[in-house]
């Protein structure tokens, strides 16, 4: 009975999806909002990457909500996992290949992550993507040497400062421009590193917050004592 019901449900879902996809052209945008933003964004925001002008310009409040959701999730994860016992057993140090790769990749990942964050308003990518790469960079040494100390308080301070910087920039926009998270500082020459007003600053704040938050979360999970094999 349950199997028959599941099959019926899956068949219904497949039918609905088929009907929806049959009416759409693959790769063609059914909405007109995108075209309007494509035309208005270069003059209004000045970011070469239009996606960034949407994420941090037109829909910056959504981005703040996204950061809040991520913060809540990371906090809940930290609360659930708690602290490992002082005498908790550590995994042994990794082999030569992982140790050498961790040492080699750490600066490389750091540079790539920072590049993607800083160039978020020029090329694809931005604070979230670069932040995840930064988190990977800081987590890699912990993967190679499980016993090393992870500076949780330091990461929490950077995370808090970055989150506060995002809101402070938004409030400055409210005071100067009349709307919360209004881009300030002028647009500059489109395509240069110092352009699009406060958007690069916002993306640096987002990148630092996401990076430190996710690195802390992964370190939390990894530090927790493993079950005896």
């Amino acid at each position, binding site marked *: 009975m349950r199997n028959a019901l599941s099959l019926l449900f899956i068949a219904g879902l497949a039918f609905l999806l088929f009907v929806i996809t049959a009416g759409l052209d693959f790769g063609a945008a059914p909405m007109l909002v995108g075209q309007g933003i494509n035309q208005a964004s270069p003059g209004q925001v000045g970011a070469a990457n239009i996606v960034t002008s949407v994420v941090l310009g037109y829909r910056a409040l959504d981005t703040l909500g996204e950061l809040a959701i991520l913060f809540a999730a990371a906090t809940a994860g930290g609360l659930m996992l708690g602290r490992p016992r002082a005498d908790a057993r550590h995994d042994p140090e990794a082999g030569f290949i992982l140790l050498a790769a961790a040492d080699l990749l750490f600066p490389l990942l750091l540079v790539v992550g920072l590049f993607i964050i800083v160039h978020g308003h020029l090329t694809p990518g931005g604070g*979230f993507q670069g932040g*995840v790469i930064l*988190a*990977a960079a800081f987590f890699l040494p912990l993967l190679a040497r499980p016993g090393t100390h992870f500076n949780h308080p330091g990461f929490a301070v950077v995370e808090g400062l970055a989150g506060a910087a995002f809101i402070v920039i938004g409030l400055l926009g409210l005071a100067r421009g009349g709307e919360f998270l209004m881009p300030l500082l002028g647009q500059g020459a489109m395509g240069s590193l110092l352009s699009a007003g406060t958007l690069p600053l916002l993306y640096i704040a987002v990148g630092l917050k996401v990076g430190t938050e996710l690195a802390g979360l992964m370190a939390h999970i990894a530090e*927790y004592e493993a079950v005896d094999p």
Partner: protein
Amino acid sequence: MEHLINWIALLATVVMLAGAVAVLLLENYLAAVAATTVVSLGAAVIFVVLRAPDVALTEAAVGAGLSGVIMALALRRLGLWHIGTASDAGDDAPDNDTGRTG
């Protein structure tokens, strides 16, 4: 050029479907986690084909990298981190039998 892009999209779709089926069929949990990241990588390729490089970067970083690491760490926390399959582990890992399929 248009043909090439269609073939790339088709290849990515086949790889994604194969990865998704492999997640269900693989007996080793660590291998199943690796297969989920293959699905995410295929999705990233399709996002590039659809000219959404921002989304592709996110999918590659979060879907393939971060969620894979977190799932693997969760396996370690649950004591299911084994390189061999459940049947290889034998008698010394009795808690492994609960995860065996079929």
